[in-house]
């Protein structure tokens, strides 16, 4: 089975935010919850660079390691999903995540922040595929439909790629060869440098 990954080519990211609204549109994500966001550094200065950030579905995901309620599991494709039924809203995953991906409906320093929400790679969660329950809790399951995440599919400049890690790495490599420079495939070392865990825990 292929390993699902995101790849962001910052040389092409123009901060148009299509990825953000595509995600909201497809998954019914409410105001205030941002499964994906675009971050710009050196805003307004030479070298201004934007990156689109969401859960990267890390190979050895820190969120899974720290979660006291063991809500996370990784699919055979490497997609990191979680159970909202089990989540206690403690926020540990947020502190552990190198990408700031976990989102919470309530802002509080103490007590539960509500059920954690994050990017599912458009793969839903632990409920029947494409059931109403799955949509309400996790959003669409495009993967089960044989489709890839909508954020990448709709990216105006194809800066954001999603899919089989080998395939998208190849697309990116061809681009780098054509234009003569890379952009670092932002976040890849952090997310995927470690070997894929063969352990897949399904609740």
């Amino acid at each position, binding site marked *: 089975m292929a390993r699902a990954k995101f790849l962001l080519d910052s*040389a*092409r990211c*123009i*901060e*148009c*935010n*299509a*990825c*953000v*609204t*595509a995600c*909201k*549109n*497809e998954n019914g994500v*409410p*105001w*205030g919850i941002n499964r994906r966001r*675009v971050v*710009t550094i050196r*805003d*307004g*200065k*030479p*070298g*201004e*660079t*934007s990156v689109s950030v969401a859960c990267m579905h890390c190979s050895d995901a820190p969120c899974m390691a720290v979660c006291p309620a063991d809500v996370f599991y990784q699919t055979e494709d490497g997609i990191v999903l979680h159970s909202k039924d089990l989540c206690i809203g403690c926020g540990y995953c947020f502190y552990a995540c190198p990408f700031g991906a976990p989102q919470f409906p309530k*802002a509080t320093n103490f007590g539960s922040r509500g059920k954690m929400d994050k990017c599912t790679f458009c793969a839903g969660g632990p409920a029947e595929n*494409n*059931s*109403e329950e799955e*949509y309400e809790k996790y959003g*669409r399951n495009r993967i089960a439909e044989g489709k890839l995440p*909508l954020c990448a*599919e*709709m*990216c*105006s*400049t*194809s800066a954001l790629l999603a899919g089989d890690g080998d395939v998208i790495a190849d697309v990116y490599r061809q*681009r780098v060869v*054509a*234009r003569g420079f890379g952009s670092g495939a932002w976040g890849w070392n952090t997310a995927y440098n470690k070997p894929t865990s063969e352990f897949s825990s399904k609740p």
Partner: protein
Amino acid sequence: MTMDRRGFLRGSGLAVGGLAAVSMMSKTVQKAEAGNAWQVGEVTRRKSVCTHCAVGCTVEAEVQNGVWTRQAPAWDSPINMGTHCCKGAAVRESTNGERRAKYPMELVGGKWERRTWDEAINKIGDEMLKIRKESGPDSVYWLGSAKHNNEQAYLFRKFAAYWGTNNVDHQARICHSTTVAGVANTWGYGAMTNSFNDMHNSKAILMVGANPTEAHPVAMRHVFKATEENGAKLIVCDPRFTRTAAKAHEHVRLRPGTDVALIWGILWHIFENGWEDTNYIQTRVWGMDQIRTEVAKWDPKTTEDVTGVTGEQLARVAKTLADNKPGTIVWCMGGTQHTTGNNNTRAYCVLQLALGNIGVSGGGANIFRGHDNVQGATDLGVLSHTLPGYYGLSTGAWKHWSRVWGEDYNWLKGQFANQKEMEAIGIPVSRWFDGVLEDPKNMENQPNPIRAMVFWGHAPNSQTRLPDMRKAMMKLDMLVIVDPYPTVSAVLSDRTDNVWVLPATTQFETYGSVTNSNRSLQWREKVVDPVFESLPDHTIMAKFAKKLGFAKELFRNIEVSSADEPKIEDITAEFNRGMWTIGYTGQSPERIKAHMANQKTFDRTTLQAVGGPVDGEYYGMPWPSWGTPEMKHPGTPNLYDMSKPVSKGGLTFRARFGVERNGQNLLAEGVYSKDSEIKDGYPEFTMQMLMDLGWDGDLTADERKAIDAVAGPKTNWKTDLSGGIQRVAIKHECAPFGNAKARAVVWTFPDPVPIHREPLYTPRRDLVAKYPTYPDRTFYRLPTLYESIQKVDYSKDFPIILTSGRLVEYEGGGDETRSNPWLAELQQEMFAEINPRDANDNGISEGAWIWLNSPTGAKVKVKALVTERVKPGVVFMPFHFGGWYEGEDLRSKYPPGADPYVLGESSNTAQTYGYDSVTQMQETKVTLCNITAA
């Protein structure tokens, strides 16, 4: 950590005004239940086209049980190839959202009261007829829209004609009017010459006052293809370090309002080094010698003094353009929205002509249009100075369209006050409020002021001088808003009565054709039925026509349903029969639909179909698609490209300005399009010319009969309703409009050779004497001020330049996009970009509230975004916000439940007087201001 634009984003939605009102929707009106994937019902896929910018991205909608449930990537579109920007990826909200105007409403005693459609049409119509009786038809202003589809746009212009006024216009006036005038007067047509896809072939891309990463994001995928695979050099000229500049090889930071000086400064190096294309100039360009004389004045030192750009940088830019051909130029509002806009657009054209870059693949003037159908609405004449197809307003033009409409010309004339007003250019939208406020004694061809104003798909906050507009709104007898959203028009003034909001549908609730920036026509299918009580524009027009008494005449050739809905395809067919000037004649509804159905067969660079049912045709039959639909002209992908035969999409420069000037030949010299039987320049085709060439024998008997019925031998390619003249010219591979030179000098304009003139509100008082503005004069019915404004020195109290522009999340006045929660969440507060130096000098800190004060006395309260994106002495504000006025939040004035999620000050409250000397385009890119902590 410095804050970026989205640093304003608040953590929680609860902080946002108005969000709590989501559930306030009237209980009596329910839209269809927003859908879930599990709703029973088959999934139907419908293709539409995004309703935001003019790139023309296909939207693929999934519909279940009549509800738009999902958006899918439209992979087959050769333009967007499945992708979108944030606006396109959020359009589903248009038909599912809560903040629409839901039913007709009347403002009575300051309260919005619900009305039925019949009540509304009757009451508004009675008031209009009363005004007409008392003050004449020119006292009602019909402001149309680039949001109409082509059929609605055409019908709207025809409707105004049948009402009897030229006081009809739309936002193209304040968008690219200076482009259309400048470019058409240079080489024939005023549109984007090539296409987004053709930029794949460019080796250099020069952008001036264009910021596609925010305004046309999907265009950037085509730009990147050129820069990454073709090694194209991207040069961005802009006073701001825009997000586009961040991706460029070179950023040229000019002082706002110095475009002509900048272009001449570049051309100075080109002429100095002999980098111009002399053969091209000799055979295809007239007047370049006069340009040389002007350009000689713009040596590096003079240019740097005026523009702020060094000679060293411009020498590098000039060499890049000379070494990397073909190169294209892209411009947008940064170039057009000036008192000297027509000079700017012509200077851009001249630069490209000097380099020999027009009429070649990879070259061209790729002018990105703004609204989704601003090209179509312009072509179809929703303008105060012309009928559809740029025919103008002359007697001949009216007779042409009377023939197309099957109308008695004299009856039509009787609808107007008189023939003089029928042929007099109307008041432009940029100045409609001056038509209310100005003393009629000072106006020409406008015996009485405007008394009723119809805003049909227009954001008032996209226009400058809002304090004056407020005054005019107060003075009107009646204000009518026809729009899917109440818009800022509903709340801007302190009116308490006789304001109407009529809910129009979006384009996703109707169907028809739409023309994108590169002149391709696409067909929208209806995605869902109209939501709430909204109606499509053409149905509302039919209701008004019925009430006003000319429905029978208006719809003579058009079927109207019992529910008052005119048949769209009948309207397309009608304009197909009249739009000969620009070749909107070949694109029948059937052909356009066939292109949409076979999108995947088109090559993604050439836009030509390779095999399949529409083999060889260009996507959307970019106009001109000559002759009748039966002629099957494939469309013209790149204008003026002589490497192809005219029958296959080739073209010459148009012979529009006569055959000679001061004894010099204006026709092309020894060059012609491929396979042309005339091997030299030639004038535009007439019946007489066919006879002289001995080609009239090629006409069929029916064609000959039609030609005789118009004007016999004097009938020309524009007025022949049979298309026979065009067909025969093209049979011999000649362009129906002739084969001429482009003209670098437009002798009919105030500045025949484009020259630099200082802005009306300039901080460089020392340059005013050398580069003064125009004398005051009256045109477009109104006195128009230039020198009487420029002579006052405001620069001491208002030392900072104010400029404006776009954000990717919002479009136009923003009423629709600020009512879309997915977009509104991304940009929650109005702001001004201020350089750290100006911020510190004025005691302003990052994120703080400031007052930005205008020389007019107006002021706006906005957040400070301290950034080096602007240089010291320049402040930038986006123009999409509205619903605040001089610090006051107007949310309570919106009809309940129809207030946008995000409100804010309009930059145009602080924007000042200034209009282009040819088109009355408003100046939004240079004025003065000062800033103080609030």
